[in-house]
């Protein structure tokens, strides 16, 4: 029965309706803790530390892309292909920030080289002498593009320190494997862990970059924290995220998308407007950040980096060697 029926007036509550003092106090305590938690999560949301060493860095004037508009930080950190977290573009941002730890993070460098090592990412940044900022064009195989200010160091520096053997012809990049943390790896949609590869001359090219941040901040989880590859003249899927191992090998490594659909995703995967994907043209690209009627931009050979990388492919038929 409700108290109202046993009392004369609405304000005359029976004793049974009164909360005991200790329960009242426990409730206060509970509210305080929850309140603090909410404030805390608001303060630290989306800023889980990755590799924090080296910030703030300064821009490398050779890679500024003058006159090119950067893609907004919001777009870069909310529109991601990171299948470890799901097929959707928004899923990585949502799902990778639910307690997935990217610090501390150990990177293993091994295979055919004189200086193999396992090293914490912050220590690696110190070892290679800090980080710099470069603005790179980013062209996805799905025919959209961004311009991203990366923070990191040239891959060539890391390779120099590792001193690869003469028999090393390729470099293999392996992403993390943690099915407990990420839902995508619990399905057999792709052969995990995600693996990519470059030839040694490609890997030592001045453009090949190892990023630990973007927009002057440590990499967000959805962008491949704490350390990832950036190969701006190739389609985005070549730039493997959240690396745990870099290996020097003799034979061309098997790479994830190439294994899955060799006619759609080549090993080289150089950006090339005259070689179409089987399902869509690569002649043009949609620039992220444009409106509904913004039209498309013509795609450039090697994503506009022909001057720096065209010599790597002299004598190679780019139509056959996708």
């Amino acid at each position, binding site marked *: 029965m409700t108290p109202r029926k046993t009392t004369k007036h609405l304000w005359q509550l029976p004793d049974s309706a009164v909360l005991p003092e200790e329960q009242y106090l426990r409730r206060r305590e509970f509210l305080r803790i929850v309140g603090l938690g909410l404030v805390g999560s608001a303060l630290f949301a989306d800023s889980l530390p990755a590799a924090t060493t080296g910030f703030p860095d300064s821009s490398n004037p050779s890679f500024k892309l003058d006159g090119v508009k950067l893609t907004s930080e919001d777009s870069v950190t*909310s529109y991601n292909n990171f299948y470890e977290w799901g*097929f959707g573009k928004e899923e990585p941002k949502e799902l990778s920030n639910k307690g997935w730890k990217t610090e501390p993070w150990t990177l293993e460098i091994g295979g055919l080289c004189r200086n193999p090592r396992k090293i914490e990412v912050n220590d690696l940044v110190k070892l290679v002498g800090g980080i710099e900022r470069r603005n790179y064009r980013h062209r996805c195989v799905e025919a959209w593009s961004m311009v991203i200010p990366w923070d990191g160091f040239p891959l060539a520096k890391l390779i120099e320190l590792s001193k690869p053997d003469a028999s090393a012809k390729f470099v293999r990049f392996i992403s993390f494997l943690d099915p407990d943390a990420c839902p995508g790896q619990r399905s057999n949609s792709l052969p995990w862990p995600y693996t990519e590869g470059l030839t040694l001359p490609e890997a030592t090219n001045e453009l090949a970059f190892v990023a630990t941040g973007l927009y002057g901040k440590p990499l967000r989880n959805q962008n491949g924290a704490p350390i990832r590859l950036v190969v701006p003249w190739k389609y985005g899927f070549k730039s493997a995220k959240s690396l745990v191992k870099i290996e020097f090998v003799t034979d061309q490594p098997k790479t994830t998308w190439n294994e899955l659909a060799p006619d759609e995703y080549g090993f080289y995967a150089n950006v090339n407007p005259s070689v*179409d994907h*089987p399902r869509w*043209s690569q002649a*043009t690209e*949609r620039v*992220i950040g444009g*409106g509904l009627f913004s039209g*498309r931009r013509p795609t450039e050979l090697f994503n506009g980096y022909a001057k720096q990388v065209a010599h790597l492919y002299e004598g190679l038929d780019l139509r056959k060697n996708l």
Partner: protein
Amino acid sequence: MRGSISGRTSDRPFEVKWLTNILARKLFALTVLVGVGIWFLIVPAVSGNLGANPLEKLLHQSGEIAIWTLGAVLSLTPLRVLFPASALVVALNRHRRAVGVTACIYGLLHFGFHILYEGGWDGLVRSLTKPFIWFGLAGLSILIVLTLTSNLWSIRSLGAKNWKRLHRFAYLAAALLIYHQSIAGKGHWHTARWLLFPLLGLQVARIVKTLYTDGFFENWPTPGRKRSGPDHPIQRYYVWPRSEAGTISAEQRLRLRPIAPCHLPRIIDGPE
């Protein structure tokens, strides 16, 4: 006599009257069919929730709505065959034409977004070199033809039989479009299976039941259609205009079939 199938009786086993009354309303169908578009296309567009690549989002959402709407209309007939006594199923079947036409409209919208996404004429022409696009266009073309003939005038001028044959192409359209959808993403069959398997399951169940009521399994294990006399069970499902009851021969009677769309089986006083 086992319950008559006219839309007005209330001796159905699964009837929930108020729900049936709502589901049977044109307003209900309209609200759902238009509401889906408002919810998944217009609301996110107005509130700025289309993400970093808004046109891609609209393209994908409209395609998803179109193919699921097509899936919905294709599941209505099998459901009616499987559960002829369910008032809910009968009520939903009233909206077959509306649902089908809506699938076509969302398909056209999807194509419109495709043109925008490709950046106009040149991009559209480039996209037309891809088989992936052909499948979508072929499926959409079928839906357009079916939409244009979704009226009484077309049924009359084609004749019920021809009209029905023509509208069986909806199944071909569904096959083409499910394939189109399945290869659209990198995950291939991961997305399509949610639509394909339920639709296939319903069709298989429907065919088995039709064969069963036709007496196909009566001589099991050497099956074959057996059409016996006037007390054969299948007659309960034929449309049989009341005015002609008793005026046609048994042979003519066997040729009568329920005709689509939107005709509720009007009843049948089949011989007891």
